[in-house]
């Protein structure tokens, strides 16, 4: 039986109109404490922000499958462009 406080993932919306963004994680004994800790650690007490906390164990994530990834050494390695657009060569430097 471990006494370690559970790990929580923290999501912060720093301004109205923006999405919540993953800020990192921290340990807290319960959700209320997690929110307060997030305020202290990840927002340095900025006003008017929104904090979501989720216990890390409740996050479900997709698995990158290397065999099916867009990685293809023969072609133009699409995954290197974060927007995943196929840019013609001459536009690469824009």
């Amino acid at each position: 039986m471990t006494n370690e406080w559970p790990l929580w993932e923290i999501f912060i919306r720093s301004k109205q109109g923006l999405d919540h963004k993953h800020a990192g994680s921290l340990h807290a004994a319960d959700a209320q404490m997690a929110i307060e800790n997030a305020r202290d650690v990840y927002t340095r007490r900025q006003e008017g922000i929104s904090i979501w906390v989720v216990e890390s164990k409740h996050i479900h994530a997709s698995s990158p499958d290397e065999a099916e990834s867009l990685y293809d050494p023969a072609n133009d390695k699409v995954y290197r462009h974060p927007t995943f657009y196929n840019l013609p060569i001459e536009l690469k430097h824009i």
Partner: protein
Amino acid sequence: MESSLDIFQDKVDNDISIEPKDWMPDEYRKTLIRQISQHAHSEIVGMLPEGNWITRAPSLKRKATLIAKVQDEAGHGLYLYSAAETLGISRDEMIAQLHSGKAKYSSIFNYPTLTWADIGAIGWLVDGAAIMNQVPLCRTSYGPYARAMIRVCKEESFHQRQGFEILLILSRGSEEQRALCQDAINRWWWPSVMMFGPGDEASPRSAQSIKWKVKRFTNDELRQKFIDICAEQIKTLGMQIPDPALKWNEEKNHYDFGEINWEEFWNVVNGNGPCNKERLAARIKAHEEGAWVREAAIAFAEKRKTHNA
């Protein structure tokens, strides 16, 4: 058909972040866990030498900014522990490694802070050296580590400026203050230079770390850059760097500097520095004396859950 390792290395070569669920070589994972957790430990242990002067800070402004700085270091430790936890190690495991001596932390924090001027010297030199290391790590290959470093670097800039300002004011003050300033520089210079670790020839893991972009520059490269910058900055203070061999080399476009006392370095790394025992003892004490608090918080959270169920 490319192997996982080829894909991994190709990503690294092209500055594509490796994220927690991606395939990675075992050795890469182990190296990262060690490097990130030791970086985290350094931040936490680093709170102690400076924390030592919080109650004695000589003005309210200095009191507030010093607390803020030390608190930042706690925050940095936290970001780094978080990043390490994405690799499959828990905070408790890392803390146990620190307390048992299995994990190391930057040996610079095994030196004592004897005067208020030490706080200035730490900000200028120790944080200066840390920044030199940390900025390149903002582009390290492992995503969570890089993102943690970006946060750290954003917050770090005021630390160094604060330290330099403390020394600047001392350097323009009374004779006693100027003496305090030079004395602190005399004691913190060489340990700061040693922060960059052993020379490149004595760093066997260096090449692999550079290939994996867990490290972006060699120890000697960073050390040279640090010395070049400090040798200029100290002119503003009107103080001396305690190295008689320090001299601008026109051909190399760098400063030449004296021999590092590697015996002292290894001695301190291996646990015989002036404050090794005290630093670790303080951390162990805080952890042990806090156990009842952590337990109570868990117990209460359970009670509340059952109550609300």
